[in-house]
Structure formats: structure tokens, C-alpha cells
């Protein structure tokens, strides 16, 4: 049985169909990619799953349970963690404080929560920055903190919205290693990513959307060679010089 099922989900903003009848299904333990051009509706779909938006139509089924329209904090308690495309750290607080907020979901004891938070921070190479204020972090560290904080809630499924955007190639590789490690511990990962090299190398399966609609899904190999996908990214004319980092 699938861990997460998105059934015919639509989200409209006024007349705009940001997500239009998307269906997909993610198995436990998978790394599942979601790609598509800018404005395709990827983040909006994430927000529907994470409870930020209630879908206009359709259903979200998690672990056999209909969780459509649940509030974000209840979704988090279901053990679905998420990161934001535009990172949202608690700026005036330390890195440890940020992660501890997440870790408090499992315990009300502060020192237990801090221990758990430290453990996760170390995994994301933030251990020695625990005392630094979040506002003083570099972009790469902010992205790491965003992931670490979500992981501190001890999720079974992690939704990652462009966690590698803006990272240098070696930082991307490092993040991919962390992802593989997280997955090996049984966490299912659902990720949006524009860096094709990254998402192609790590995903088991990928869904491609454009203008809110699903174009196709398949393995990275199938997706990379699909006419429709190439068109979606490069335009009907196969025009010269599309996005540099798009091709696999």
C-alpha cells in the first residue's frame, strides 16, 4: 500500500488552476521527485499535502487515512515533515533553538529535546554552529537548518522544496549523501528540485507537472528521455539555450 496518495488534487487561486487534478502515489522508503518549470504548481501541491492550503478538490491519503484539509500542525504530528522553498528560520534564535522547537514534538522535556536536536544538527553538519544565531548563517547553512529542523520532528516522510537551490556542487553532493542516509533509516522523501543532476541521481520515481497538470511520471531514465518533458522545459520549438541546468 502506498504511504502517500494524492488523488485528483486541484488547487485554484481565483481563476488560476495552480494545481489541476494531479494524482500520484508514493511508496514507503522511496525518494520521489517532483519537477516542472517555474510556476508549474509544485510548491502549491506541497502546500496542499502539508496542510498549508486545503485542496479545492481531490483527496490526500496518508497511510490509508484521509487527511485532506488537515491543519499543518496536525499533519506534522502525523509524522510528515516539510521544508520551505524560501527558508523560514527563527532568525533571532540560535541554530539549536530552531531545531529544538522541532524536537519538542516528541517530548516536553527541554534537555531531551535539545539532545535530540543536537543529534540531528550533527547529521546535517551544523553541530559546531549550534550556538550561532540563525540570522548569521550562510545560505547553505540556512538550507541545512531548514532540513535539520524538519528532521528534528522525527518524520516518516519529508517534503523538501528545493533544498539544494543556491548550493555549490560539492554542497549538493553532500546534501545528497545526507538524503541517502536519511532514507536508509526508513524516511520516505518527497522532493522538489530544479537541479536535474541531483534529482535524477537520487530519485526512484519522478512526476513532472506543467501548468498545474501532470505530464507524466516514471523513472529518472524514462523522464529524461520523454518528448513531452523536453518540450515542457525547452518549449515547443526545442529552442536553443534553455535553462542551463535543466538537461540531465
Amino acid at each position, binding site marked *: 500500500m502506498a504511504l502517500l496518495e494524492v488523488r485528483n488534487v486541484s488547487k485554484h487561486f481565483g481563476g488560476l488552476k495552480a494545481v489541476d487534478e494531479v494524482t500520484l502515489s508514493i511508496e514507503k522508503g522511496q525518494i520521489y521527485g517532483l519537477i516542472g518549470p517555474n510556476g508549474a504548481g509544485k510548491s502549491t501541491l506541497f502546500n496542499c499535502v*502539508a496542510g*498549508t492550503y486545503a485542496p479545492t478538490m481531490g483527496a490526500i491519503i496518508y497511510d490509508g487515512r484521509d487527511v485532506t484539509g488537515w*491543519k*499543518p*500542525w496536525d499533519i*506534522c*504530528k502525523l509524522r510528515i*515533515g*516539510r521544508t*520551505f522553498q524560501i527558508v*523560514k*528560520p*527563527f*532568525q*533571532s*534564535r540560535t541554530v539549536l*533553538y530552531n531545531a*529544538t*522547537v*522541532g524536537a*519538542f*514534538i516528541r517530548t*516536553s522535556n*527541554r534537555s531531551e*529535546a535539545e539532545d535530540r536536536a543536537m543529534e540531528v544538527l550533527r547529521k546535517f553538519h551544523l553541530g559546531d554552529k549550534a*550556538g*550561532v544565531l540563525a540570522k*548569521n548563517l550562510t545560505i547553505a547553512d540556512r538550507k541545512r537548518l531548514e532540513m535539520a*529542523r*524538519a528532521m*528534528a*520532528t522525527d518524520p516518516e516522510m519529508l517534503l523538501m522544496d528545493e533544498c539544494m537551490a543556491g548550493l555549490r556542487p560539492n554542497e549538493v553532493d553532500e546534501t545528497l549523501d545526507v538524503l541517502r542516509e536519511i532514507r536508509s533509516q526508513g524516511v520516505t522523501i518527497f522532493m522538489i528540485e530544479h537541479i536535474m543532476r541531483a534529482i535524477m541521481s537520487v530519485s526512484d520515481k519522478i512526476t513532472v507537472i506543467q501548468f498545474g497538470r501532470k505530464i507524466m511520471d516514471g523513472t529518472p531514465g524514462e523522464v529524461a528521455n520523454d518528448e513531452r518533458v523536453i518540450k515542457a522545459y525547452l518549449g515547443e520549438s526545442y529552442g536553443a539555450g534553455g535553462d542551463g541546468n535543466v538537461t540531465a
Partner: protein
Amino acid sequence: MNSGSTKRKTIDTMLKLALAVFVFTIPVWLSSPTYLQILIMLFLFAYLTTTWNLVGGFAGVLPLGHSAYVGIGAYTSTVLFISLGVSPWIGMWAGALIAAVVGVFIGIPTLKLRGAYFALSTMAFGEGIRVLVENTMQLGPFTINGPRGISVPLLPGNNLLAYQFTSKVPYYYIILLMLCVVIFITWWFSRTRPGYYLAAGGEEPEAAQALGVNVARYKVLAMGISCFLTALGGTFLAQLTLYFYPKQILGLDFSFELAFIALIGGRGTIAGPVVGALLLRPVSELTRIYLSSTLPGLHLVIFGLVLILVMLFQPRGLVEPLERAYNWFLDRISGERKEVKS
């Protein structure tokens, strides 16, 4: 970081101890009731701003109607004392409970609003309460007396049970103790899960929600606690002055003063309200003594100017630079290597 030498720690503890001893022994050598009164009001404002700070600081919104809860405390305990002979020591808990219920009731719809709308609606509510009280002479069996206000019936001599003292000294210690207690509560609360959740939700609500925090619920909780404690300060004020009226105790400038003290001292910090009160109360007192007849409300104008300066140069309030200066001073006298903090 300057966690460090035992010498530095000893000096730190000694200085803090000296300060505590100093504050607790002021009435021993300061006999002038006028100066004691000024200090009492300073501590009362530090107290009220600390309770305000639970919502205004940690929950990240700007309540501008907290005088309503001061008034609820003052009116409840006084009215119970006058009509039923209930000691204000008991009546103050009734006032606190009513304030908490009202605060939660007001908080549930308004705390969902964004910044300016919350500030405006609390302000409107505070003004609403004032107008309501000014137009109420009698509430069931209780005399409210409209705009003329109420006097607490004066009993002869010192009367502990009636919360009345002829000397300022008992009031000094009561409010000092109350201040210490709320500072402790704030410190303790900020280290618990609800405290983390409240601060997280105040700073980045969406992120906090994604981490499992029902942000609105924690803000409402904070509002309840804040209003409860604020009302206790209201009873104190009633017993101190033994006479109060709506314009004074339910006025907008009262609410504004709390916000000014917090913003200038350091919103969402534990020491901020005390620092702010130390700085602003003397200004209030001086303008009131010397200029109240010619330029009433001048203190708010001065606060506004100070606030602009503070926001320009120290947007997080004055506690931050003071803390830095104190740490620098400690480093110097403990002879420790000066380290540049990042």
C-alpha cells in the same frame, strides 16, 4: 563565548547580589515617601510591562489595550471590597480570573489578525471598556460610579488584611516581590515547550506550524496568562492610590506607556521591561510634576522621540547593548582576554 573563568563568574554573581541587596534595602535609608512612590510606580510599570511582554514580546503582536486588564483588576477587587467586604488579597484573584477570561475571549478572534489589525482591535477594545465604565453608574449590586471613579474606603492605620498601609514601605516590598515573581515566571516559561512554541509562532508562524505548533492556541494561552497577571497589578495600583477613575486607569496613554517601555527596553527579552521602565518612568514623573498643567501628555511625545532613536540605532531595544557593555566590563575587571564576539 565568554563562559569562563571562575573569577569572572564570581564577580558576576557578586555584582548581581550587590544589586539585589541594594534594591531590597532602599527603604532603609530612603525615607522620602515621594521618592519611594516614584520607585513603586517604576516597579509597577516594570511589572505590568513584563506581563504585557508575554503577548507583546514573545507572541510577536502589539497589544495596545492592556489598561483594560489593569482596570478589570482594580475595579473587581475594589468593588468586591466595598459591597461584600472581600479582602483585596482575595478579590485580586477574582479580578485576575475575569481578566484572563476576557483576554482569552478577545484573543481568540483578534490573535488571528495580522500585526496592525491586532494592535488596532485591542486599542478599540480598551477604549470600548473605558467608555463603557464611564457610562455605568451601577452594575447590579455594585457601584461603579461612571467617570468619577471609585475610592477604596479608608481604614484606620495599617491593615494587612485590607491591603492598606500608612507607609509606602510595605507597598515597595509587595511590588518588588511581584516584579521578581513575574520575571521568574517569564524566565521559566521561556524555557518550557509552550515558551518555545510561543516565541517560534511569534517569529515565523508558518514555520512553527509546520513543526507541529498550533500557533493561535499558544498565543491565546499567553494572552490569558498575561491578562491574569496584569490584573493583579491593577489591584495593587488601586490599593496604592486608594482612588482611581476610568481616564486614569483605563486610558489609552496607560496602554501606550507599557508598549513604549517594552519596545525601548527590548521586546521579547526578560530584562527589557525593567530597563525600559528605569529609563522612561523618570521621564513620565518629571514631565508630570513640572509640565502636567502646561503640556499634558508631553511624556508620550518624548517617548515617541526616544523610540524613533532606539529603533534607528538599536532596533531590538536597549537591553542588547547594555548586555554587551556589561559583559565587556566583566571581561575587563576579571582580566580575561577580550574576545570579539560574532
